């Protein structure tokens, strides 16, 4: 091997070592532990094969509920963040006044910790003294006041709404960058040809934005599948297990000291994320043709 080929490896070796040490090795260890009965009550680690995976996927309907909740959360928040993010981006690049100020305000929840956002929204959504219900009641709309975080019907939608509110600003910024990169010539040519708003949107904007949409979708989906903080802070998975997701179950398994089971849940999540991400990238990463 000549020096020119070795040179890039020489510079990237540090990063590769750190990547293997802190990313690859723990992930492989986690997969290994998912096949053991590793727990906090004993120093022994016995190989148990697929026992944890059988418990999760076939033995206990509760785990299937966690998987279902995770997928539902991911689907709804991904679509909502993408649609709202795109809508806001289109609005802000269309010449609206004080666009930078609006952009900053909409983006600002993104920089806040979900711990803070969760505590604020827990207070706002309190069924008795929360701002939302108090406002609704003061407007005579008592029938709209709900137990937002405590009812089976409203708990999950409430978490999704708060999460969407927090995350849409980031997606909006991605779309603004994508929109600003589209050459104006296309729109001018389309206008000369007599194209209207919707034709420009579907024939120019969305196809040209496809790389950004792909990135936004993958980001939204991987975030959605990994969701933990939003659920933990707002409902702790309740009422009952109604809002529990895979990661709250992972946390709960680790907290109980059932580390082998927790590792198996993490491995399942990893596999789901890998498969979904792979197909999304393949489906959406097509070349734009005009």
């Amino acid at each position, binding site marked *: 091997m000549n020096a020119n080929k070795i040179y890039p490896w*020489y510079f990237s*070796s*540090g990063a590769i070592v750190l990547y293997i040490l802190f990313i690859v090795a723990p992930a492989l260890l986690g997969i290994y532990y998912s096949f053991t009965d590793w727990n906090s009550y004993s120093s022994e680690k016995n190989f148990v094969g697929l026992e944890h995976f059988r418990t999760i996927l076939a033995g206990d309907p509760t785990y299937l509920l966690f998987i279902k909740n995770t997928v539902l959360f991911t689907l709804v928040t991904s679509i909502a963040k993408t649609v709202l993010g795109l809508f806001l981006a289109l609005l802000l690049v269309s010449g609206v006044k004080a666009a930078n100020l609006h952009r900053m305000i909409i983006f600002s929840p993104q920089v806040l910790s979900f711990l803070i956002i969760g505590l604020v929204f827990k207070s706002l959504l309190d*069924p008795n003294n929360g701002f939302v219900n108090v406002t609704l009641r003061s407007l005579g709309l008592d029938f709209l006041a709900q*137990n937002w975080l405590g009812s089976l019907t409203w708990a999950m939608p409430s978490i999704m709404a708060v999460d969407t509110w927090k995350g849409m600003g980031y997606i909006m910024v991605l779309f603004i960058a994508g929109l600003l990169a589209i050459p104006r010539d296309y729109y001018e040519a389309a206008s000369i040809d007599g194209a209207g708003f919707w034709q420009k949107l579907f024939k120019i904007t969305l196809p040209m934005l496809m790389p950004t949409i792909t990135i936004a979708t993958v980001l939204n989906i991987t975030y959605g599948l990994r969701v933990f903080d939003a659920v933990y802070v707002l409902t702790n998975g*309740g*009422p009952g297990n109604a809002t529990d997701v895979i990661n709250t179950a992972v946390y709960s398994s*680790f*907290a109980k000291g059932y580390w082998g089971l927790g590792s198996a849940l993490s491995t399942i999540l990893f596999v789901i994320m890998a498969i979904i991400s792979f197909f999304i990238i393949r489906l959406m990463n097509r070349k734009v043709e005009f």
Partner: protein
Amino acid sequence: MMKKRLLVSLASLLLVSGLLLAGCNSAKTSEGSGKVTLTFGTSQSGIPRTGIMQTMAKEYEQETGVKIDFQVVPDAQWRDLIKVKLASGEAPDIFNVDVDPLSMPANVRPEENAIDLTNEEFAGRMSEEILPTVSYNDKVYGVSFAPSKIWYVYYNKRIFNELGIEPPTTYAEFKAISEKIKAQDIIPFYQAPASGWYQVLPLFETGPNYEHTTPGTYEKLNNNEMKVADLTQLKTVIEQLKEFADLGYFGKDFLSNTVEAGIEAFGQEKAAMLLRVPGTEKEVSEAYPEMEDNMGFFVMPWGDNQTIGVNPGGSAAMFGNKNSKHPEEVLKFFRWITEHDNLQRVFDGGEGNLTICWPEIEPKLTQDYIDYEKNHEKGTVMQAAVKYIDPQWMDIGKDISGMFAGAMTPDQILQNIDKRRAEQAKVLKDEAWQ
């Protein structure tokens, strides 16, 4: 040559990374000035809410230069958090854990995680009742201030008198008086599912009633000769809780209630009854002076229970982290806080506990309590006598919240309890479950 350079570079990189990590680690426990800081991790209810421990810790710092840094975590998260911290070697220098003789060894793994206090002078001064809850294999590991714990239903005498009602002795009476209270737009019974644990109390504090009705129940459960699902009285209590929820006796939207807000609701007479421990009168009347002499108590009548449930442990005990960098300072703090005068200060400065697990400290039980307890049978609560109940307390709390919301049935709750008991028994290789 190139390969050699590459190897040298990699080795240097690893060395620098290692040094950086080591530096970060040592910076965590040392403040550079030589001053020692002991971290003290606890749940909210693990130390008095009056702040007496924090006040005393400041004085201790002035005396000794050792700072106690309190890390107070909500009750619902602490049980899980401390287990993870212990397992990962990240536990505070001093940590509080709710203790009982059955689950403390599994929760704390004292031989690996706790400083042995057996030969400390103060270990011999704790009451005989508390010692089994903080000991393992004949060694003392924990320091507790907790009294033997009893949960009574506290009631507002004025509301009861105005409505012409008496403390109930059966569930039917309990329901009847709750209906009368609700008709006055007052919440009959304050329930607090948002804290995660409070709603579980009626199930297992009435355990002595199950044992009283069918002697040997606890033993059979421990030997896996019967299931929790076979306890028909327990199912009745769960169904009664659900009935109270459905009838609105816990109030509207009570699922968001927290334990901390209970005193306010009771003190402001928004709720007529709540579950609390002896000494509640002091805490309530200090915040709401008009409530003084306006509070009575009775044993919880779920499942027609009339036996007082006593938990010899059940509350938090302090443990010194065996892997702490400052074990001697931890011991010195324990020696200081357990000096007679300081014990008295903790007792006097707390929310109002009427007893403490140190016989040298004079209890403050009023004649009302002494008379009441003379006239009722007492028994050990289920979580302190039956294995694998206490460790799943928060899970059961979630299940009950789910039942209140309509997601679970009492039968499912019982089945879940048995399932989790079996899981833990399996992990602990309990012979009765093999």
